[in-house]
């Protein structure tokens, strides 16, 4: 029976780690992956889920064990051990969370960069004639870019790759109570649903008409607030054909729950067909709100 406690601790720790890794790898909590962003996100999720499971099971196991093992037996009115502290132990359980948190932080920084989060810091100043003076000032303060005489607008950075400017499909998004409107500046199409081609980088330039909304596609793992007075950018590459919900995620009024639309990811041929059939010459009327 004389198993050294160090060995028991080691075995329990290994079992916990394996259990956490198994849970993180096998328990699927997320919806399907439909953008280039989603697998990266899910990799981060798996790491966080595994670490979280290990910590939670470990701490709760310790708690339950203590409650059972050290419960007061009937008739016993004595005291426990007078142990007031233990410095090496304190150092260990300060260091472990610090290391875990540092690792998670560095890893999520890496994920963030792979998602293109840092790119927006450098690239998201686009040329726009209707720039507001305040925006220029913001730009010069935050980006150390001198106020461009042509008017350089500070676009509050969203997330997404914005490297290959030529290949990007630009779409203007207007959010209002309680609908999204999508305008394709290249083809002049205006629609209440977002149609995008598979595998092509899409850049949404979003602005709200009235209050703050948020553009969220759970299957893309992307969300960006749509803010009145401050255009925001969101770039993504759809990787899975299908129809996915666009959800407003910022309380915007009574019909907030109904402010939904769809994003349709077409095969490239299908997208061209959609473009052809929706040229403004044929569809001249105002866009229908998807829900009201």
């Amino acid at each position, binding site marked *: 029976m004389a198993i050294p*406690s160090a060995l028991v601790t080691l075995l329990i720790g290994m079992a916990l780690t394996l259990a956490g890794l198994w849970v993180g790898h096998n328990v699927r*909590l997320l*919806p399907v992956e439909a953008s280039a962003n989603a697998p990266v*996100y899910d990799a*981060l999720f798996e790491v966080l889920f595994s670490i979280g499971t290990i*910590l*939670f099971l470990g*701490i*709760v196991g310790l*708690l339950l064990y*203590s*409650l059972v093992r*050290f419960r*007061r037996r009937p008739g016993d009115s*004595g*005291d*426990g*051990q*007078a*142990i007031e*502290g*233990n*410095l090496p132990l304190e150092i260990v359980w*300060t260091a472990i969370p*610090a290391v875990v*948190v540092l690792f*998670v*932080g560095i890893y*999520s920084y890496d*994920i*963030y960069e792979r*998602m293109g*989060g*840092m790119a927006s*810091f450098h690239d998201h100043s686009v040329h726009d004639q209707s720039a*507001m003076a305040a925006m220029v000032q913001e730009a010069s303060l*935050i980006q150390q870019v001198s106020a461009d005489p042509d008017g350089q607008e500070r676009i*509050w950075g969203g*997330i997404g790759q914005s490297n290959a400017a030529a290949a990007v499909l630009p779409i203007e998004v207007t959010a209002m109570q309680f609908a999204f409107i999508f305008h394709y500046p290249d083809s002049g199409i205006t629609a209440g649903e977002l149609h995008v081609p598979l595998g092509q980088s899409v850049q949404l330039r979003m602005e709200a008409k009235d*209050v*703050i909304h*948020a553009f*969220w596609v*759970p299957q893309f*793992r992307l*969300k*960006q607030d749509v803010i*009145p*007075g401050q255009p925001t950018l969101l770039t993504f590459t759809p990787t899975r054909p299908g129809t996915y*919900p666009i*959800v*407003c*995620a*910022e*309380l915007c*009024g*009574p019909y*907030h*729950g*109904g402010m939904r639309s769809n994003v349709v990811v077409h095969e490239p041929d299908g997208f061209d067909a959609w473009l052809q059939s929706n040229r403004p010459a044929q569809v001249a009327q105002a866009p229908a709100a998807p829900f009201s």
Partner: protein
Amino acid sequence: MTVANPAELEQSLQPQGWLKYLSFSLDHKVIGIQYLVCGFLFYFIGGALAGVIRTELASPLSDFVSRDTYNEVLTLHGTIMIFLWIVPVVNGAFGNYLIPFYVGARDMAFPRLNAVAFWLIPPAGILLISSYFIAGAASQSGWTAYPPLSLTTPAAGQIVWILSVLLLGGSSIFGGINFIATVLKLRRPGLKMMQLPMFCWAMLGTSILVVLSTPVLAGTLILLSFDIIAHTGFFNPALGGNVVVYQHLFWFYSHPAVYIMVLPAFGLVSEILPVHARKPLFGYTTMVYSIMAIVVLGLIVWAHHMFTSGTPPWMRLFFTIATSFIAVPTGIKFFNWLATLWGGKIALNSAVLFSCAFIFNFVFGGITGVALAQVPFDIHVHDTYFVVAHFHYIVYGGSVFVIFASLYHWYPKFTGRLLNEDLGRLHFLLTFIGFNLCFAPQHWLGLNGMPRRVAEYDPAFTTWNQVSSVGALLMAISTLPLVINVVLTAVSGPLAGDNPWRALTPEWLTTSPPPVENWAGEAPLVTEPYGYGEHTSAKDLGGLSGRDLWSTGKS
């Protein structure tokens, strides 16, 4: 130091008996009870509002209340639970009742300010709730009141909301100043800071946060009210204002507000566990430093609520790192509590069960919190039910569970009678199961696409929403054994004696309930508030393996 004698009290204008609880009493114990009872009344109102929300969400359609009403209900629910229930109870109720005992004083530093602070709360609460009936429409913009939505929803309700929150913020600041002064200046001569019970440190840290951050909220809300009444343009983009600035200012208070709600709870748990485990609080010094670290870090993490707003990337990264690091001092506290339990002789009564459930819930909420601090993770789940689940694990699973634990622990002190254990354990079981049934499924809902604050949702989410609503129903039912227990015990419960838990902290070294100036004679000097435990072994824990420790525990 004289003690008030009964003859003097006869001449006092203050009412005696139960009427004193409705008076402008200056006694910190009366004020503490006033906070507690007032807080519970608002808890029941806020809970009923939560019931409306869960009933609406039992079906995917908006079919129970109108959409405007739904937004009013969720706004009032959040505002009441934060500003009228948790903040006043963990700070005002237990802070006022316990802090003067712990520092060896006969009252708070500013008794009159204390009474004013309490008496701001009932009018503010009544004002807030009556806005639903009088102003025609209560605030509909959520407890966050983000402009421009708060500028475009019915103005009267929004203004009443602002007034009410300003009054409550004022009350909170008065209380904070009082706690700081009492802990720093009213300590009994000979009592050193590092000899104070942990709850004093928790209240000191909390009060520093209150005093530093609440004025920012007050200023912000005054600017917001200017935007609404005087049509200024601070936060109105149509007039050149900036809506994101409001969010920075708002969260500069409202993130520390989370610590204003949980730090006192940390302090209360640190008082409860050693008494019932019959062991000293483990790692007193590191507990103190970790509270102060949480206070400092808590002030520089606010923008993690804004990762999907227009924030520059460097800012997102800074706030990710700062937020993640709060896990370190918080982790220290949890490991210290576990070490306090380890090797003790734990009485598994209601107070301990609620305290340990607090550890369970808060660790879960803390882990999802570290995940939420990561920008890429947050970008998917921000403003979804995942966040709703996370913060209910923190403020309900954390603070509210501790309020219940504290009620079972200190009720004998308040009334001289012991609460019934069977009803207490029933209350615990219903609350624990109901709470986890209600909020655990919401993590999945958020990950899969259900945003928060909606009255209608994708029918694919119906099942788990119904499970969540059943959990909410259990939580509602769980208040019945609590109320029955508290009322029956007050009338005919078994007498507790002065110190039923054999505790060493100074509030137990007097009669239960205590006399007006706390002690009949001089205040006791308690330099070892956690001096429990048998010094059977002079050996240090570090030199022992776990198995050795268990065997010495047996002997």
